């Protein structure tokens, strides 16, 4: 059984902050098939189309029949831990600071034997379930978890290296004025975040939900306007060193296309709130997050982008909005490369139409703010990087994978 995580003591301000290190992160192009699965929380290995052999580690030719037709397929993740060992010393700087470290060999029910990191409750000879995780270098590794959930399971220090669990961490929700921002504050408070900073622009402008927001445990309202560089910088200067997760809830959702819209005022607002807002947050909070990537139990760990799934394929009814979301997605890809040295994940959460005022005329299925917020928390708890929330988002993901051109045509109708 895992010892429950203890709320970290206040940091000694005179102590040096240890710098983040990363495990070896180089993977072959083929091996990134595992990265893609790990990013979404799937368990996938290569399966030979010619002889059905399940292959691990990833290869360019089937070890059984030499076929090159080896697509990744989602597979059952059950197996037996057949042997384990504990690494007590190593020359690798990342693992040196984290020994003892248990690893083992797992015989998968679907065939291959894999070398896996071991959760503390995975027992030699016992049943385990394998998960592909992104480690601190954002590369896929296999972790063996006990077959059934155990008490305090998420508190296992090895597992916590692979996740961004909000428990005992301090989160910044950038905009508390929206129903998504309010649902997010509630979800993070419930998930055990030790402080939930909630940004609020134009405090002189009343909004519904203010009283309920203030009542959420451990919520601290802070002045923040993502359209105002000075405001973003000030908050980062004051509180940046005690913010471990940033969730950007600033939104600007308006219907309207590119040709079929009158003027650029709304487009400028969209870009200012969403794209430039993201850049302001990234420049203000990114460096300190990256610096604090190994700062103890409440190390900096994630920057969460809430993105319309139409960042991936334009929805002409909300065409200008979609284009702005696409710009944010591109920026997020850059941020991933830039924050990776600190072991800080950039989590992109794609959603379809929300059950909120600005999607009033859009028929269901729609994503409720609470569902979106819970998906964000779950993604962090599992260490995911790309998340699709709701039926519309999942549908678009699948159609995009099959035939992007067909999807483009269909979105116009």
């Amino acid at each position, binding site marked *: 059984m895992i010892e429950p995580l203890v709320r970290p003591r206040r940091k000694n301000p005179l102590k040096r902050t240890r710098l983040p290190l990363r495990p070896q992160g180089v993977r072959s192009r083929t091996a990134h098939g595992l990265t893609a699965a790990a990013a979404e929380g799937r368990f996938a290995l290569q399966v030979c189309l010619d002889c059905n052999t399940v292959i691990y580690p990833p290869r360019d030719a089937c070890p059984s029949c030499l076929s090159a037709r080896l697509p990744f397929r989602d597979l059952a993740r059950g197996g037996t831990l057949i042997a384990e060992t504990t690494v007590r010393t190593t020359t690798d700087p990342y693992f040196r600071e984290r020994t003892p470290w248990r690893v083992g060999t797992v015989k998968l029910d679907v065939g291959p034997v894999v070398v896996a990191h071991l959760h503390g409750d995975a027992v030699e000879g016992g049943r385990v379930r394998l998960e592909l995780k992104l480690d601190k270098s954002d590369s896929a590794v296999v972790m063996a978890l006990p077959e059934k959930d155990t008490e305090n399971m998420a508190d296992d220090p090895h597992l916590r290296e692979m996740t961004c669990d909000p428990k005992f961490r301090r989160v910044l929700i950038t905009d508390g004025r929206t129903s998504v921002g309010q649902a997010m504050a509630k979800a993070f408070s419930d998930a055990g975040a030790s402080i939930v900073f909630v940004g609020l622009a*134009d*405090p*002189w*402008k*009343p909004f519904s939900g203010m009283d309920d927001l203030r009542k959420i445990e451990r919520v601290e309202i802070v002045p923040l*306007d993502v*359209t*105002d*560089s*000075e*405001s973003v910088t000030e908050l980062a200067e004051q509180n940046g060193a005690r913010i471990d997760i940033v969730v950007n809830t600033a939104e600007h959702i*308006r219907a309207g296309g590119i040709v079929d819209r009158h*003027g650029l*005022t*709304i487009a400028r*607002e969209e870009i200012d709130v969403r794209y430039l807002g993201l850049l302001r947050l990234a420049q203000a909070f990114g460096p300190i997050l990256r610096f604090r990537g190994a700062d103890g139990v409440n190390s900096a760990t994630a920057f969460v982008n809430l993105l319309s799934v139409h960042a991936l394929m334009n929805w002409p009814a909300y065409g200008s909005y979609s284009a702005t979301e696409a710009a944010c997605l591109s920026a997020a890809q850059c941020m991933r490369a830039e924050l990776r040295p600190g072991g800080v994940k950039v989590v992109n959460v794609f959603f379809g139409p929300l059950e909120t005022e600005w999607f009033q005329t859009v028929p269901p299925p729609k994503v409720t703010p609470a569902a979106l917020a819970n998906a964000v928390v779950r993604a962090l708890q599992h260490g995911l990087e790309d998340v699709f929330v709701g039926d519309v988002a999942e549908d678009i993901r699948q159609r995009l994978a099959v035939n992007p051109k067909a999807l483009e045509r269909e979105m116009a109708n």
Partner: protein
Amino acid sequence: MTVDLMAFARAVANGDIRVIDLTQTLSQEFPTIVLPPELGQCAPFRMEEVSRYDERGPAWYWNNISLGEHTGTHFDAPIHWISGKDLPNNAVDTINVAQFIAPAVVIDCSRECAADPDFALTIPFVEQWEARHGKIEPRSWVLLRTDWSKQTYTDYAALRDDGAHTPGPEPAVVKWFVEQRDVHGFGTETIGTDFGQGQHFNPPYPAHFYMHGKGRFGLQCLTNLHLLPPKGAVIIAAPLKIKQGSGSPLRVLALVAGGDV
């Protein structure tokens, strides 16, 4: 008559004429008018640093700013309102510049507004003011002192479920100002020249409708009106020369004879 401009300059320099700043600082935090969110919005003041003696510009500090024509303390030109759209010289770049300097009367209703944020200025109220201070001379700015500029931003914007609750003029008194008193324009401390609930008047937003319909001007988000005498101040309010601009943020100065305050 010869005018001794040098005497004027000396009086300003030695304080015989006091210069009072009626302008709010352009800042990111200062409230901007709020319209229903589906309508076009006035941009708030924003500032991006271009360089600050650093690698982006080693020996100099400067900013790029963005804002709307109606952000912060600003001037409204007749072209701003549909009633003034066809008047000649109705935009900030074409208004005769001599009109940017004019005397002002200050009607103090700060006590009434403290008691009632929905205080509406009426003709009888102004007639009582005239009984004390004399008739409003033609081509004078009428400045409404409400002390609204002294409020917190929340009370300043005063937004409730049914919109803003801030003082302003009734339709009849605006029409009377223009037709019976030939005023130069109307200035307020509040976010607009109109009553907070002015959309329910007939016509809606009368300060805009009547003033601009007759080619008169507006000033809003003023401050320091409590430092002005009821009569005798001269206002310098020159908007930026924006091509076909509907208005402009500006520095509003009042000249007051030393003995007047």
